[in-house]
């Protein structure tokens, strides 16, 4: 198993064993974050659309490893705006840097970049398609809070139709004998393609419209934001917008090991009084993103 030089575009690019290896390496970085393993490396951070959270997480990871970072945080100020193709940008940057981290508004942009680049590419989000490092930090966080990835009851809440983090996480957890509890309004149910992944893995899922129904038995509650623009009928949005909000009072009777995750940013779907409960884990989850990205950078660049 060698991940050296291997691009990470889609969660299916890595095997289960490769994931587990990355999670193990990430734990080492959590214990000891400052390791100058990449002091002779240049990491290109190309954000063709802004995503402050993801960019800061990657750049922190690169800095903690001693690498130097080049790039841009918004393509508005680059040659891209002057009409340069993605292909040309990538060919040029891959002659400067040792690895490319990229975010792009078009689906498939990262795959295409990995095919024209002479250095490995890490996909930091390509439109509505993939965001594999988010999925890996979710796995890391689940493992950290439950001490296992196996046989868990995972509740996914909110926008299950468009939320790409939800689709990737469901797909990844299909490797670990999970049972899925899917809580969403009618209009935002999990797509049938993703339900097929669950069926193909011979696992079970149940669909709910009430968040309260899953709280007593969930090991993980994965909250997502419901966006108004996803609804064809604004009245439907008004009806559901406050029914998928988690409050401290609702947590009574939950399992002692239960933790609440959220890919962030949240709007109102987790009330602030939850932040101080021992179930709240979403800020730690974001922190974990740095360790997982350190593990990926170090592994792909052959330093781990």
């Amino acid at each position, binding site marked *: 198993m060698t991940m050296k030089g291997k691009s990470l575009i*889609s969660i299916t690019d890595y095997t289960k064993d490769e994931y587990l290896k990355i999670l193990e390496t990430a734990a080492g970085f959590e214990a000891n974050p400052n390791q100058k393993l990449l002091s002779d490396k240049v990491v290109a951070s190309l954000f063709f659309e802004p995503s402050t959270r993801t960019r800061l997480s990657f750049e922190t990871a690169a800095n903690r490893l001693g690498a130097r970072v080049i790039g841009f945080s918004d393509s508005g100020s680059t040659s891209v705006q002057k009409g340069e*193709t993605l292909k040309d940008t990538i060919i040029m940057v891959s002659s400067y840097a040792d690895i490319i981290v990229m975010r792009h508004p078009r*689906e*498939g942009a990262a795959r295409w970049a990995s095919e024209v680049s002479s250095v490995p590419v890490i996909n930091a989000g*390509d*439109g509505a*398609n993939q965001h594999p490092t988010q999925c890996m930090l979710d796995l890391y966080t689940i493992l950290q809070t439950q001490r296992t990835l196996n046989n868990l009851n995972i509740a996914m809440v909110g926008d299950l139709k468009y939320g790409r983090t939800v689709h990737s996480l469901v797909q990844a957890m299909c490797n670990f004998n999970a049972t899925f509890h899917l809580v969403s309004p009618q209009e935002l149910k999990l797509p049938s393609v993703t339900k097929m992944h669950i069926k193909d893995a011979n696992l079970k899922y149940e669909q709910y419209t009430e968040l309260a129904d899953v709280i007593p038995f969930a090991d993980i509650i994965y909250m997502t934001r419901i966006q108004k623009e996803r609804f064809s009928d604004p009245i439907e949005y008004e009806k559901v917008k406050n029914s998928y909000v988690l409050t401290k009072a609702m947590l009574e009777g939950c399992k002692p090991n239960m933790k609440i995750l959220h890919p962030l940013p949240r709007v109102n779907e987790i009330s602030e009084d939850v932040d101080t409960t021992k179930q709240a884990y979403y800020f730690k989850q974001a922190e974990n993103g740095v360790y997982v990205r350190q593990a990926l950078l170090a592994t792909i660049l052959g330093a781990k």
Partner: protein
Amino acid sequence: MDKETRELKVTAIENGTVIDHIPANNVFKVIRILNLENNNHQVLFGDNLDSEKYGKKGIIKVSNTFFAPDEINKIALVAPTATLIVIRNFKVVEKTKVEVPDEIIKIVKCFNPGCITNHENITTRFKVIDKAEMKLKCHYCEKSIARNNIIFA
């Protein structure tokens, strides 16, 4: 003389390929996929002909041209029922059915407007994820495409 021989005879070719049992109205798509517009050999075709099996069908005859399996299997997208007949010296020497390929390269355009292939000059690639249903999956944006959403480039 049976019907098939008669039909072949009317516009018989000495050497070449006959593509028979093309679904009616898909003849031009097949011509485009096989790039027969730029073929210098004789090309004869008919559409909406009576067929016992399919009601109406199309047929194409190309002189002095023989197709590699990879090439001919591309037409499976529009003509999954097609039969390929190889003619040498006015005789049928080989008869095969088209087979749905594992991958479709170039001839299909991704139906997802947000797909990078619709914004840069990229050769499209699709995996055939369900051969019976002719369901494709874009190699780039990873979206699945049902048969009725397939757009030809």
